[in-house]
């Protein structure tokens, strides 16, 4: 019922047009023939790239991305960036080290089709800020990395078991002097309470001097090292025990002077 109304309206409209045409007196053109539908089965036209994409499109360095593509009507499909000839439908993992645009070229009897897929490589934040935050200060190196050396009773030579500590001290002190070329380190020689105070003053002097000499041979600048003996005047413990004596027989490093 409704369709009939529309048909009537169309007829009416056509009638008006015909009347108007008649008034201009131009013969009506024949209607244009519709374009032929392309035939899917025959590779007669240009290749068709259904899609060519990277997934994901953004990676960090060293992370893989996957290129996926699908091409029809092509006799040859190539991707640049050393990937080369590929099948019309496929996927390929890539490990770009920098942002890369992959270029796909599909060649068929009907021509050439091309497409691009870009993988954006994001560079991780520079490591500099993190070490800067963790970089110990001179103060921290002096208190945490530079360790006391210890000595046998009435001796001032560096003990075999302290060689590792000596190496660590040398390395830490070299770092300190690189950080601040004006920095001065004083090596204090100390003794346990048993010998005479007089002899111990000279013995502590030997301990400090022996430590300085050993550090110089390990590349620590000697002009940055001063020595002082406190003999047995500044013990770090006062119990009459061998453990305490051993702790007091030491070369200690202090800042400045």
């Amino acid at each position, binding site marked *: 019922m409704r369709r009939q109304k529309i048909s009537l309206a169309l007829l009416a409209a056509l009638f008006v047009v015909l009347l108007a045409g008649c008034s201009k007196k131009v013969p009506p053109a024949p209607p244009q023939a519709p374009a032929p539908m392309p035939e899917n089965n025959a590779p007669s036209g240009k290749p068709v790239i259904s899609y060519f994409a990277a997934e994901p499109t953004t990676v960090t360095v060293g992370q893989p991305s996957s290129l996926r593509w699908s091409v029809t009507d092509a006799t040859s499909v190539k991707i640049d960036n050393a990937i080369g000839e590929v099948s019309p439908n496929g996927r390929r993992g890539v490990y770009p080290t920098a942002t890369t645009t992959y270029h796909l070229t599909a060649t068929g009897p009907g021509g050439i089709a091309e497409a691009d897929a870009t993988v954006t490589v994001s560079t991780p934040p520079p490591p500099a800020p993190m070490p800067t935050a963790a970089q110990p200060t001179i103060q921290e190196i002096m208190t945490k990395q530079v360790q006391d050396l210890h000595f046998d*009773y*009435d001796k001032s030579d560096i003990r075999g078991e302290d060689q590792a500590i000596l190496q660590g001290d040398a390395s830490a002190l070299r770092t300190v002097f690189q950080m601040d070329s004006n920095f001065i380190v004083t090596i204090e020689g100390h003794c346990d*309470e*048993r*010998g*005479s*105070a*007089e*002899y111990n*003053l*000279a*013995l502590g*002097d*030997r301990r*400090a*001097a022996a430590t300085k000499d050993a550090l110089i041979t390990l590349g620590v600048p000697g002009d940055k090292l001063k*020595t*002082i*003996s*406190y003999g047995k*005047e500044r013990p770090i413990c*006062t119990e*009459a025990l061998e453990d305490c004596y051993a702790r007091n027989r030491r070369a200690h490093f202090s800042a400045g*002077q």
Partner: protein
Amino acid sequence: MRTLTISISFLLTLGIASARQQVVGDVSKGAAKPLIAVPDFRATGTTAPTLMAVFNSTVQNDLQSSPQIKFVPKTLYPLRVPQVPNDLAAGLAAPTNGPAPTPGFRPADWLAAPANANYLGIGYGAEDRGLFVVFGYFYTTAPNITDLQQAQVFGKVYTGSLDQSGAMDAAHHYAADILAIFGGQSLIGSKIVFVSDRTGSKEIWEMNWDGSEQHQITKYGSISTFPSASPDGRLVAFTTYATGYPAIQLFSLDTGRKLPFYNQRASMNAFVSFTPDSKQIVFSSTAAGGPAQLYLANADGSGLRRITNSGTIEVEAKINPKTGTEIVDVSGRSGLPQVYKMNMEGADVQRLSAGTGEATNPAWSPDGVHIAFAWTKGFEPGNYNIFVMDVITKETIQLTANEGRNENPTWAPDGAHIVYASKRGRQSQIWVMNADGTGKHPLTEKGSNEKPVWVNAEK
């Protein structure tokens, strides 16, 4: 009979101490030490009686601690005590064969048992115009003397301020006058310089040799230690960290001021010993690098000359105060520290200590014949005792034992006393003893006190 009793008691005493007598020969030469009685003096007035008690105990201490005489214990004295010469005169005037008019007033009463005193000191004191005045007399009790003038050895007036130190001063002078008769050198005017941490840091202090009038010399708030004194009693040298590194400083006891001293550029300059004329010094320095070595210089540090070149630690040089031609020191030449002797050129080196344990702190006796030193003989490291050695024979006697850690002995100018540091517990104190090891008593009690040096009375 009486004489026999005396001889026996002497023999007993000598038998026990014979080893000591032999080595410290000059100190106690002559077997028969005189027996001396000094009964308590009395005084009138408001303050004087209290001060008299101080006087009496000081005289007794001085006499008891002298190796020259033997002090008769007061419990052996007669009950009646003469106070003025007239008391004795009355006793002498009485007939000798009759009953004694007042037992105790005759010199013979003191010569008799149980006192057996060869000499008698009497006297009394009073306040006079704000001063403490003591009349002190000294008599022999030798038999067959009938005249008081003949019996009197001396009679003097001693005055001091009307306080404790005045009473002690008067007592020291009276005791010194008695001891001088028997060859004792007076200690009056001599001082002891030492190190004390009682202010919180090690400073140099000074006191009278009886421990009185302790006062601070340095006020650096640093470490100031290792004092020594010039034989003329005018200079004290010590080592201080006040300027950063252990360096020598010179101090005038006359003016109480610092004197100029040229320290060597070295990581340490320390341990000064003066020549007998007080014009030169020997000390230890690392001026040439390597272990501390001995150097000779003028008293102000100028005119340096190296003495030793041993390649090992050389510390605590002490110049012979009598000859001025030899040095003892402590050296590591044979391993653990030992006492060595050498001439002023550093030659003729000879080890004095036995080589066992550790021997340190040598100190010459004033006659330059003996050294006192600290030795760990027979004990573990750090357990020092005081020994005295005859430098020629190397014979040693031990003066301390089982009384803590004892070190840094130095001799009194009378050669009869030794002052030293004794650590019995956590703190060290200054002690004094007779050169034969008897009569030990402390002089300090506040803080920790060490490194005593007996300073001669100023010449």
